[in-house]
């Protein structure tokens, strides 16, 4: 990108720099994002502000354009990789500065399925939105989910599947949670390319999330409802 070469990030105003970061995220420019994060930190920006106003806001635009068919998986992955670079710098600082916590989620791809692109995007966007995310990886039998729930005590369980043949396993996990009397202790969100809302309802999930942006909205919505219920109770 020839024009990009002419821009000196350090010479931009805060407002221009944040706008430039949105553009650079959109273009998947990891090095530029990392440089801009350092510049804003040097200018005294709080890590949480950089995360939300620059990275999450930029990635949200990417998410909308993916949803609308303007961007495709490769572009989203490059953008996510750039955001990851920025978050890697911010994460330890966020812990130190006590950024607000929205809730906690355990997330994993179901048994028989090794696909994790969607899951990783959801994890990253939820972290960006202030959730603590415990990612238990791919090919998880029900025992892995139950152990992680017991160990982590999250608000939310997230399950992902890319294959028509593996998505029914989500019901195995939910049914097992019902049998053990655990189902109502957790918000269960599911996602993956072959799923839909009807499937989510049929297997007893709280919601189907069609993309990472929806997952963030659902997670926030359900956690706040849960907290309201607890306050009312």
């Amino acid at each position, binding site marked *: 990108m020839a024009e990009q070469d002419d821009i000196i990030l350090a010479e931009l105003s805060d407002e221009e720099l944040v706008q430039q970061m949105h553009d650079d995220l959109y273009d998947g420019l990891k090095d530029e994002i990392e440089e801009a994060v350092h510049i804003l930190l040097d200018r005294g920006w709080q890590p949480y502000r950089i995360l939300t106003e620059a990275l999450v806001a930029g990635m949200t635009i990417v998410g909308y354009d993916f949803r609308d068919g303007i961007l495709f*998986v*490769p*572009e989203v*992955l490059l953008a996510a990789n750039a955001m990851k670079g920025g978050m890697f710098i911010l994460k330890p600082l966020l812990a130190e500065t006590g950024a607000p916590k929205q809730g906690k989620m355990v997330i994993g791809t179901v048994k*028989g399925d*090794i696909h994790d692109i969607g899951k990783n995007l959801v994890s990253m966007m939820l972290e960006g939105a202030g959730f603590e995310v415990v990612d238990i990886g791919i090919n998880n039998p029900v025992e892995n989910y139950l152990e992680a729930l017991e160990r982590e005590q999250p608000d939310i369980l997230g399950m992902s599947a890319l294959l*028509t043949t593996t998505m029914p396993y989500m019901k195995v996990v939910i049914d097992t949670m019902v049998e053990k009397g655990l189902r109502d202790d957790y918000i269960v969100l599911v996602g993956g*390319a*072959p799923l*839909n809302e009807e499937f989510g309802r049929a297997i007893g999930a709280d919601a189907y999330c069609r993309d990472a942006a929806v997952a963030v909205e659902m997670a926030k919505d359900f956690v706040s409802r849960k907290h309201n219920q607890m306050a009312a109770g």
Partner: protein
Amino acid sequence: MTAAAFPDALPDDATLTEAGLPAQRPRGRILLIACGALAREILALRAANGWDHMDLTCLPAKLHLYPDRIPDAVARVVEDNRDSFESIFVVYADCGTGGRLQARCAELGVEMVPGPHCYAFFDGNAAFAARADDEMTAFYLTDFLVRQFDAFVWRPMGFDRHPELIGMMFGNYEKLIYLAQTDDPALDARARDCAARLGLAYERRLTGYGDLATALARQA
């Protein structure tokens, strides 16, 4: 149009990917509505078995990149042609539609090929399911997908522009299995090259037409 002559009229793979095969003037009693990726195999079976009463139309194979669009696309072709044929058979498996294609076919009163996708029915659905745990980390190609690897995998995944994405997208895969419908050394070599480009081990399995042959025979 005879069965032997029909394959000569088949468009090239790029056309089957982008545009499919338009419906011809009805000649047979049965219309097969198929994915463009299956055109050659269906016409080979049609010729071999003398199923001259079967007409074929194909949707663009690239619909597989957007599986949510397949049920509506199939439904449109069914509606457009149902008055011209005694019966219609949909030559798609689930193909990533999460049961939506099956539901739509049931609403339309037409049958489709059982199974999750073409890899499974070429391999044989039962055998494919039995191997699912052992081959969880396998990425499959068929004859068509070997020929159209760049159009279906390499370019849409952005690997031509950003090779660093290969690791992000294929990092959990270990091998590429070429499910061969025909015994073709040239395709074998191309499939091996596809595996190398993705950094995967290579295996070839000659499947023939598998459950596709039995599914079509049941309709004949």
